[in-house]
């Protein structure tokens, strides 16, 4: 059980601000739990906690992706609050991950609000565009970018610094079973991510490979996905070669026919 000082709180706000800028870009992946928790841990003076909590949250939010413009429970806030809660309450990272969920949802709603409200920004840009004013166009975009990041940073500051006592009290009143229950759930949560990934990728043609990958991970000593990815690339490439050949065979049929037509005429 530790307390977050005001200075730490403000530094954390800056961390979240920077990561939120990146979250809108999706460029450097500093918005991922792994990174934001690392920085937050450093600020809190317990880098190791930050690293471990970040790893746990990273895995759970692996499949909660923004793909297609959807807004999932917020990975930035989840990573951030997992460290903060683990730090202030002294609970393990799994439990803290479970308890960070309400904040991840809060940030999700904030994101949806901005994505809706920014229709006004579109209007402003349209005007600048018509005027051919590139400078103004750019400034408006940057403004929108910073405002959203700022909002996220303020929410983070409030949650981490302002709410620390209520959270501590709340969590301390928890019976062991409840805490353990959050851990159990935390261990299952990655299934949501994988389920979502499958939603997008799985089809009738590639389902057998799911089972092959599962078999490899279960029955060989692999404890890292890289070797499986390596074999997957190999298999995908073999499949590609076969498909090219079959395409060539079909094409041959058509070509033969084409040449034939000319003969016929």
């Amino acid at each position, binding site marked *: 059980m530790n307390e977050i000082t005001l200075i730490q709180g403000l530094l954390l706000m800056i961390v979240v601000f920077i990561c939120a800028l990146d979250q809108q870009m999706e460029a450097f992946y500093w918005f991922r739990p792994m990174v934001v928790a690392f920085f937050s841990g450093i600020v809190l003076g317990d880098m190791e906690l930050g690293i471990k909590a970040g790893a746990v949250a990273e895995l759970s939010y692996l499949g909660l992706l923004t793909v297609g413009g959807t807004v999932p429970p917020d990975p930035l806030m989840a990573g951030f609050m997992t460290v903060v809660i683990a730090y202030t309450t002294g609970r393990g990272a799994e439990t803290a991950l479970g308890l960070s969920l309400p904040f991840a949802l809060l940030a999700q709603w904030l994101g949806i609000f901005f994505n809706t409200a920014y*229709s006004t920004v579109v209007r402003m840009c349209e005007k600048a565009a018509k005027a051919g004013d590139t400078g103004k166009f750019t400034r408006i975009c940057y403004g*929108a970018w910073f405002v959203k990041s700022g909002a996220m940073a303020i929410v983070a500051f409030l949650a981490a610094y302002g709410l620390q006592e209520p959270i501590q009290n709340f969590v301390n009143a928890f019976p062991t079973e409840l805490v353990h229950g959050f851990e159990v759930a935390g261990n299952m949560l990655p299934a949501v991510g994988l389920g979502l990934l499958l939603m997008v990728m799985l089809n009738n043609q590639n389902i057998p490979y799911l089972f092959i990958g599962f078999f490899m991970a279960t029955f060989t000593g692999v404890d890292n996905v890289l070797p499986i990815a390596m074999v997957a690339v190999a298999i995908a490439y073999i499949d590609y070669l076969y498909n090219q050949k079959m395409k060539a065979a079909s094409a041959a049929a058509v070509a033969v026919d084409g040449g034939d037509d000319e003969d016929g005429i």
Partner: protein
Amino acid sequence: MASNYKITKSDLTKLGLYSVIEQIGFSFERMQALGFTCSMLPTIKKIYGDDKEQLADFMTKNMEFINTEMHMATFLMGLIVSMEEAGEDRTLICNIKNGLFGPLAGLGDAIFWFTLLPISAAICTSLAQDGSPLGPLLYIAIWFVSAISRIWFARLGYSLGTKAVSTISENANAITRAAGILGVMVVGGLIPTYITFAFGEGLTYGINEATVQSIFDNVMPNILPLGFVFLIYYLFKKKNMSVLAVILGIIVFGIAMSYLGWM
């Protein structure tokens, strides 16, 4: 009317780097339209100088709805710049853009979101498990390279030019198929490592007090995590449940199991 300015290698490098802002100003109404247009402005100004008319037309036409994966966006920018430089009709350019961003999104998502992300996360979290900073540092490094690689995407888009259109549509299927195999197989491999779904030592049956979990292990190790993923998949796919509802359900389930002493 082709432009007088010749795009240089350094222009494309700058375009690639600057394109990281491609998603700022995101809105549900136009998605990435603002950031996409904004990213190209410095380069476009080199072509048209202070020709306000051209710039206004360019900005207005590019503010249509667009949504694609980031690296693919940069690729598209390279393509657009090459066509602008060649003086192609701008309506045509935008039509091509509209036809391509969808398929390219699928391709890019398969590569970056569904493959590079889980692999890099797996490697880095395993390095991070004992608290070593190598984990997050390597993670940052990998994605830094990924961001920087946009320079290459900008160049590729520019040099392929209009040829790109047919090449992509020809090979999109093959690449998407390969990415699907890769991604799905990786997901299969992630299941046993990522998901812990096992009954506790306390839950036994029969005379010998064998654990219930041992039955499942006997039938097939990790069969519960596998089945659980398919259950979740089914809830999403067939029951159209929301992510939030599923997450809350899991939490309730976890707490219930904990109180029952089953897990």
